């Protein structure tokens, strides 16, 4: 038996699976009913303990294809039930085997609905997964004394630049904790992709003469990486830019807007986003704990293009002068609906236009 202890004193018992380690991280919940493999390997969950609200996790096992990164960086997994006998034609191993191999602890048998309600009401918070014998008081004390990490982007960003050569548009992706899905989107469009670490300077990026710069997703608080904001600031106006998730928040900050932490974040694959121009609502895949302040947009050169139908938070931004735009959600999906995949093509259209204008000049 193991237990999950929350910063607010809540203790929930369960059964251990995966690694037998004890962990400390930020507890969050994710509401998707499929896509646990993508979630567990999404670098944006770095240092978090993820609660799956759907009670049966691991039904179709873990396959070799659906990873969003090779080494998962989430700290723990909380489920009601994990499946010991998964069934799917692509299945390679069970979730238990996977988490053991990656040394990530899981806890099952938890009343995850109650846990979700606690997180909804009290907000995301510190949590630990420990052995049952571990003193809860001790754990609480430890949690109070320990801060949640601020270096997640550094942990999950690429160490060195690398290139995936092709003959299409030259796109430089700044990697704050990039999901494979993003790469896949550009590969499908035959782009020549250069991936650079998050702290790469604007100068270095521009030296490579990209046709467009893409800002990836990434974990944690955008305020933790001011150097990245600086780079983005310098790039605006020099090259077409598209950002998602962390990338979206960095564009906002680079233009002078501010960001704040959401009470319990948006983590799921059913998040409705309203587009002001087309008057359409899209189902989007989301995973973020921070959001751009709506009222800080007024004083910038940005305009809000999309907002969340659920809580009116900012979901899309567009620069009023330069070809720069961003969305808070994941148009690459994986997991989740593919309703907004067209945004990559829209970005590439802008990139081609800009390229054309330059050539004509």
């Amino acid at each position: 038996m193991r237990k999950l202890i929350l910063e607010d004193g809540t203790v929930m018992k369960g059964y251990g699976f995966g690694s037998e380690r004890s962990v400390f991280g930020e507890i969050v919940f994710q509401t998707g009913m499929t896509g646990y493999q993508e979630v567990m390997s999404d670098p944006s969950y770095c240092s978090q303990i993820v609660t799956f609200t759907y009670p049966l996790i691991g039904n179709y096992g873990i396959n070799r294809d659906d990873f969003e990164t090779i080494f998962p960086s989430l700290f723990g997994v909380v489920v009601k039930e994990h499946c010991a006998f998964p069934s799917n034609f692509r299945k390679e191993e069970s979730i238990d085997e996977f988490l053991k191999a990656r040394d990530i602890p899981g806890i099952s048998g938890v009343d995850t609905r109650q846990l979700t309600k606690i997180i909804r009401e009290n907000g995301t918070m510190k949590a630990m997964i420990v052995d049952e014998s571990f003193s809860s008081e001790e754990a609480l004390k430890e949690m109070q004394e320990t801060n949640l990490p601020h270096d997640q982007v550094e942990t999950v960003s690429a160490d060195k630049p690398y290139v995936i050569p092709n003959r299409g548009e030259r796109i430089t992706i700044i990697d704050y904790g990039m999901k494979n899905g993003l790469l896949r989107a550009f590969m499908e469009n035959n782009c020549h992709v250069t991936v650079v670490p998050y702290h790469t300077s604007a100068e270095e990026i521009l030296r490579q003469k990209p046709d467009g710069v893409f800002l990836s997703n990434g974990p944690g608080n955008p305020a933790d990486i001011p150097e990245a904001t600086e780079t983005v600031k310098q790039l605006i106006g020099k090259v077409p830019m598209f950002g998602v998730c962390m990338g979206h928040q960095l564009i906002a900050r680079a233009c002078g807007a501010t960001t704040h932490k959401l009470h319990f974040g948006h983590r799921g694959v059913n998040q409705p986003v309203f587009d002001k121009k087309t008057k359409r609502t899209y189902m989007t895949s989301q995973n973020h704990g921070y959001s751009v302040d709506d009222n800080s947009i007024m004083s910038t050169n940005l305009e809000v293009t999309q907002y969340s139908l659920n809580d009116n938070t900012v979901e899309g931004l567009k620069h009023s002068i330069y070809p720069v735009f961003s969305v808070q959600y994941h148009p690459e999906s994986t997991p989740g609906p593919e309703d907004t995949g067209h945004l990559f093509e829209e970005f590439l259209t802008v990139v081609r236009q800009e390229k054309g204008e330059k050539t004509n000049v």
Partner: protein
Amino acid sequence: MSEEKAIQKILVIGSGPIVIGQAAEFDYSGTQACQSLKEEGYEVILANSNPATIMTDYTFADQVYMEPLTVEFLSKIIRKERPDALLPTLGGQIGLNLAVELNDAGVLKEMDVRLLGTSLDAIQKAEDRELFRSLMREINQPVPESDIVSTADEAVASASHIGYPVIVRPAYTMGGAGGGICNDEEELRQTVRAGLDFSPVHQCLIEKNIAGFKEIEMEVMRDKRDNCIIVCSMENIDPVGIHTGDSIVVAPTQTLSDRDFQILRNASTDIIRSLGIEGGCNVQLAMDPHSFDYYVIEVNPRVSRSSALASKATGYPIAKIAAKIAIGMTLDEIRNPVTETTYACFEPALDYVVCKIPRWPFDKFEDGNRVLGTQMKATGEVMAMGRTLEEALLKGVRSLEQTDGDFYDPIFDSFSDEELTQHMLRADDRRLFVLAEAIRRGMPLEDIHEITKIDWFFLRKLETILLLERELERDGWSNERVYVAKQKGFSDTQLARVLNTTAGYITKKRREEGIIPVYKMVDTCAGEFESRTPYFYSTYEPFNESVVTDKKKVLVIGSGPIRIGQGVEFDYATVHSVLALKEMGYEAIIINNNPETVSTDFSVSDKLYFEPLTVEDVMNVVDLEQPEGAIVQFGGQTAVNLANGLEAQGVSILGTTIESIQATEDRDSFEQLLNDLDVKHPGGKSVKEKDEAYEVAEAIGYPVLVRPSYVLGGRAMEIVYSKEELSHYLTRFVSNGHPVLVDKYVTGKEVEVDAITDGSDVLIPGIMEHIERAGVHSGDSMAVYPPKQLSEDVKKQLEEATVKIARNLPLTGLINIQFVVHEEQAYVLEVNPRASRTVPFLSKITGIQMARLATKMMMGGTLQQEGYSTGVAEEQVGVYVKVPVFSFEKLRSVDTTLGPEMKSTGEVIGYDETLEKALYKGMLAAGLSIPDHGSVLLTVADKDKEEIVPLAATLVDLGFHLIATAGTADILKSRNLPVTTVGKVGEEQDVLSVIREDKVQMVVNTLNRKRKAHTDGFRIRREAVEYGKACFTSVDTASAAVDVLRSMSLTSRPLMNQGGTFL
């Protein structure tokens, strides 16, 4: 806000009578749609011929026309009401087909009626196989290789290039009527022939067999701005090959990876967009378990059975939202009625597992072919929710009421492995129990998977249950083990079996040890947003979410799945009771497990517990809620059966008391009661031994009516004419311990009386007279209000007997009494101390809201307070008939002859100024095609030969040609009636061939005394069904039909409002 300002009046088409493939789900969707439209300020005109429904209540539409759902009558309604628009997508296949027909007839154009929701073009593209397939090819959606055929020869040619086995699907039919999987040419020819007849366009699809693929369903919604969402995904445990209506279904999908899922999601949204559907749509897909390959099987461009299930499974009210979309609203401007803080434009997230199990009628149709295939056979379904799949599954199993709550059927103990294998190969309604037995005795899962193609995931879940059984058997009780078993959905009876003790002991010990369930909320969003939905299910976890208020509460017990003998009319009564309780200031709590119904719409009651209807599950709710009492009167036999168990645990049963149940169900007490009250009854006895039965039968004289005690819908009831027949009957039924009732069979007019009592006053809203004489189950009889052939004296006798019985039984609320009138004397056949099938029918006709009134009486009200007094209420003007509707074309090898055992699945109403007009409309609404000219085949039993003569004479007068078999022909000839004689079955130009060759338009065939299946008579009756001929098995029904033929000009008028009078 709607942008369609021009529209003010909308006609909604309901789905008509309940038949297999089209059940209570359309009452739910129709009711929601009417409410939804009225909410937006529209005037709603409703057309539906089904009087048992809630939607046809005066409260839900502005005008209700319970007229036959035919172009003729709808045209009349349209001309009279002049609606601006028509909403056809909420009345099932009937509604859609009518919209197409009305358009083809030019009525919509002529009267300038706009079609709301899905366009006709889209309907045709989705429904017409060829148009659909070419559209799918256009948008690159794969469809199984197939051909459209209109003859059997074409079908054979098609199958030879597709390759056997092939699937036959008739075009434009519901529930897959007439279809099936064919393995060879002979089967193909047979199936196609029937299929072509069923298809209104005489087309069948011959399709590549993809049996074994995963069967997935998506419920999709789209609005005019092209916003598109998946409300719910569902996975059939049974792979492709068994009709989805007959499949055990779980939600959400379990074995699809996100990638698999998104492939199917994209396909579904592409399809709904290409069809341009505005509203709800159901997409059925088949996915290869070994690759990403998939096929689109079918699209329903309307609200369906699956959408009702999806609505209950997710909490997302599809029909309500679809109606709003139809009037031009968009998903992102409609509030999510569950959270009330978010919008309808999102995809529900579940944090529980849902399981749907169909309810089949084979407990009544023992001769029926139980094997499941592409033609739906279930009459209803149950749904259960749990936090584990096993829990949802086992809760579903006990909701079926086919076991005592256990997951075990002893019948399979004696099966050999080979027999089990055969049963797995040809799955029938009991296959869950077959699988359980196979796993229990250790058959390798590999083999089971190979045979059934059921996904490993589900087989492992079944195995988990059985391994846990074994562990409990071996290691006995421990709190941890029992807690785990409860989390996996074990009932106390299942635990009792494996722990070799009684359920009572388990319950007691469990409570002592604190192993009790908690209740979780269904909120559409997996807890992400705060919701106040009063919609709960039980599970075994640490935290309870159902907050108990300090209001006075009453628990209303629902009627469970729709089955023959217990249909939507009980849901009607349940809903009205709930509404009355709310009106009186009580907190009305409902427990039910039927996802199709209005009663399980969380907006109806103050609190809804979606739970199995067993003593254990109900007691768990009682323990938490501590209600003043429980009402069992409206939930049919299901609820009544719980009364004893609940009272034993201290629950106060309101209205129907245990004493009243015993006094009427226990034959000896019943006799005693009637004797004490000096009420006449046929006389009979309850017996346990064969010899005793023979003695009783001799004493009262043959024929006698025999039936097991405590029966529902006349199950296993028979009329026997000799000792030999009685012996045969007893061998089959006396063995299972229950006593058998042997009554004198009094032939005569059957009459039904429903009454409401407060304990002293007894109000009789109306008396109903049956067309068929006693012997045909009251649910299968045509019934007339007000009675036309009863003398004032007989009516007085009926009233007096009813008042006496009602006053002398310890009960308040509703009571139903069946009488037989023989030589001007009324005899009591049966007393039911509960709401009967006729409550909605009579309520609507008389304007007396019977279930509401009964609820008030139960809660201490008096009839006087409500302005009523003892006696029969004043008769209404006009004639109202109830006509039963059968689903025989879906149930092969079921004998269609009517008898004491109920066979109908639904009913319609016909009303007009005269009996004949009302009957005509009733028969028309019931889909009986009575020809106005042509030939009639007469082949009747000896006992009926005299009676058939006047009927035959009338037919001749009307210009019909008579055809008869030898015996019947002789008697007709002897009376100088012209008749053509045909040979017996097997002879040249035999009686079957005249049916097949369309030489007759109507058949009258009555049953010989010898009761055995597969006689010539049986074949004649089945043949008539297969070829869509009106077939009458009672001389009384046939005479009524012939009377109707003498008709008549027709009128059309709406149902009166409560307390109102005719126009």
